[in-house]
């Protein structure tokens, strides 16, 4: 299952680009957003050039074609993650919106709205708890903070160990009959840690809680099956998996989506509208108000085709080799400290590090000068950085199109940064 990386790279036109006065681009920022293959770009062009119309409400051939493209993407996404069927797949703007959808549905249930019968399990109040982890992205922190403020529920946190793993010894204390929901990342966007979602989900379910998985960093890089994970909700975003920006997926168990009150109100999400009340479409359309990102859905469909043709197992195997190579190579740099697990089997392809006194912004600036694109900062995981007593880190993240020689370019660039800021 070795990837033909040279062939894959030919699919990504942007990888031929030169940056900063003639340096070949070394793109190591895929955890931020991935590059897009020709196949995705062409599918979107084809949609706009040949099939563009609004969906569901246009009674003409183009409308039928556009609807087929949009709903076809939903079927594709459902199969991709092992959903029971496509009615469990809600399209959102991105994963932040997907998480907010669940949080606001819970808030709306608390305020007395219903999505159907028995939305009681979504109601929150003082004494109820939502459990998240210290390694979450802000998008899986802030919606829950806001929800707790609105409802009086309490937000509780799994800590992380010095080695960058969840402190599972806290599980017995954290997950109890008071827990309404456990929300956690499948894979940390900073540490790379792959979390034992199944183990935590089983505990949560035994306590009667729901489980939401932020799979933004895992779905693009490895086979993910919502049934195997034991999730109740799982979100991911297209732009990190070779697809376009502007569309993401929130998968939820059908019976939960049915019970949940809507999040955004508007066109297409209704069954019937009266002056004094409205009734709502069944899921997933109940959660898709207004004109949706249609061409983006076609692009996501193409991205799933692209990744499926290559095989997520092969992508993961390739990245594991890159991670092992990168961990070794970075390990030789004096003063460089890697955050997160050092075992390639326990982590994904995002590697964050600090470099002694040289600030990550300065490291990334020197790397950029050499054509190497990385991310510097807190990576939208401020609590995690505080946990490790650091302000910021530099993150190199890899994908199916990266090579070991690009890792070498990274290590070279880091050496240049150390020489440039040496003695600082």
């Amino acid at each position, binding site marked *: 299952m070795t990837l033909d990386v040279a062939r894959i790279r030919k699919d990504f036109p942007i990888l031929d680009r030169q940056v*900063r*006065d003639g340096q070949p681009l070394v793109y190591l920022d895929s955890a931020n957003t991935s590059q897009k293959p020709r196949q995705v770009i062409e599918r979107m062009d084809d949609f706009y050039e040949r099939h563009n119309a609004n969906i569901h409400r246009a009674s003409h051939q183009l409308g039928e074609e556009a609807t087929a493209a949009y709903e076809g993407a939903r079927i594709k996404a459902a199969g991709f993650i092992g959903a029971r069927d496509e009615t469990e797949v809600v399209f959102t703007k991105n994963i932040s919106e997907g998480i907010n959808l669940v949080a606001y549905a819970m808030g709306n249930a608390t305020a007395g709205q219903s999505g159907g019968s028995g939305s009681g399990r979504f109601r929150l109040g003082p004494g109820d708890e939502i459990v998240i982890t210290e390694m979450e992205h802000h998008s899986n922190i802030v919606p829950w903070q806001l929800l707790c403020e609105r409802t009086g529920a309490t937000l509780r946190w799994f800590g992380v160990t010095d080695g960058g793993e969840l402190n599972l010894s806290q599980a017995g204390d954290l997950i109890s009959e008071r827990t309404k929901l456990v929300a956690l990342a499948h894979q940390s966007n900073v540490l790379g840690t792959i979390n034992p979602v199944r183990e935590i989900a089983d505990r949560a379910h035994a306590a009667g809680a729901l489980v939401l998985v932020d799979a933004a960093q895992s779905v693009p890089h490895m086979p993910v099956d919502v049934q195997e994970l034991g999730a109740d909700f799982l979100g991911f975003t297209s732009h990190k998996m070779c697809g376009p920006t502007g569309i993401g997926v929130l998968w939820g168990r059908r019976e939960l989506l049915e019970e949940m009150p809507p999040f955004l109100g508007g066109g297409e999400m209704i069954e019937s509208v009266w002056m004094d009340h409205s009734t709502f479409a069944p899921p997933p359309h109940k959660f898709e108000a207004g004109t949706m990102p249609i061409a983006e859905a076609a692009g996501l469909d193409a991205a799933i085709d692209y990744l499926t043709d290559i095989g997520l197992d092969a992508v993961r195997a390739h990245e594991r080799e890159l991670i092992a190579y990168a961990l070794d190579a970075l390990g030789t740099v004096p003063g460089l400290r890697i955050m997160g697990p050092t075992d390639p089997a326990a982590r994904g392809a995002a590697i964050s590090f600090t470099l002694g006194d040289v*600030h*990550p*912004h*300065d490291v990334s*600036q*020197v790397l950029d*000068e050499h054509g190497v694109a990385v991310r*510097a*900062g*807190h990576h939208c995981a*401020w609590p995690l*950085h505080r946990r490790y007593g650091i*302000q*910021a880190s530099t993150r190199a993240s890899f994908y199916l199109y990266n090579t070991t020689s690009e890792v070498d370019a990274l290590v070279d660039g880091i050496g240049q940064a150390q020489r*440039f*800021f040496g*003695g*600082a």
Partner: protein
Amino acid sequence: MRLESLYQEVILDHYRHPQHKGLREPYDAEVHHVNPLCGDEVTLRVTLKGAAGEPVVADVSYDALGCSISQASASVMSELIIGKTVPEAMSLAEEFLRLMQSKGQLEPDEEVLGDGVAFAGVAKYPARIKCALLGWMAWKDATAQALEEQK
């Protein structure tokens, strides 16, 4: 090479040997500013001396965590404005802001901005402009608070 035009020797000098760094007593106002993009932060104190209705920047002291650009900028700023009247210092802040927003098209006046001219290269890197402005924004905020107190 472009890196040298961004990180001019003056900037690296101030980064390695920051001037006026360390929080000092007494002070009239203290603020804490962060750059939400990268987490850089500065705590900055201002002491004003009112001389015949024209307040003077008697002292600026700060503690900062951040990249070379933000550290050096706070250092250069302190050197420039300590001893100036508040209106003079405010006009320097405006001049520096204009330089940062110039996209690299403005030829800065060394007579006015002193070591601040070294930051001209920063204006070509949109992601770094906030780094260079962090200390200045904190100073403007602290000074506004100090003036408010005096009323």
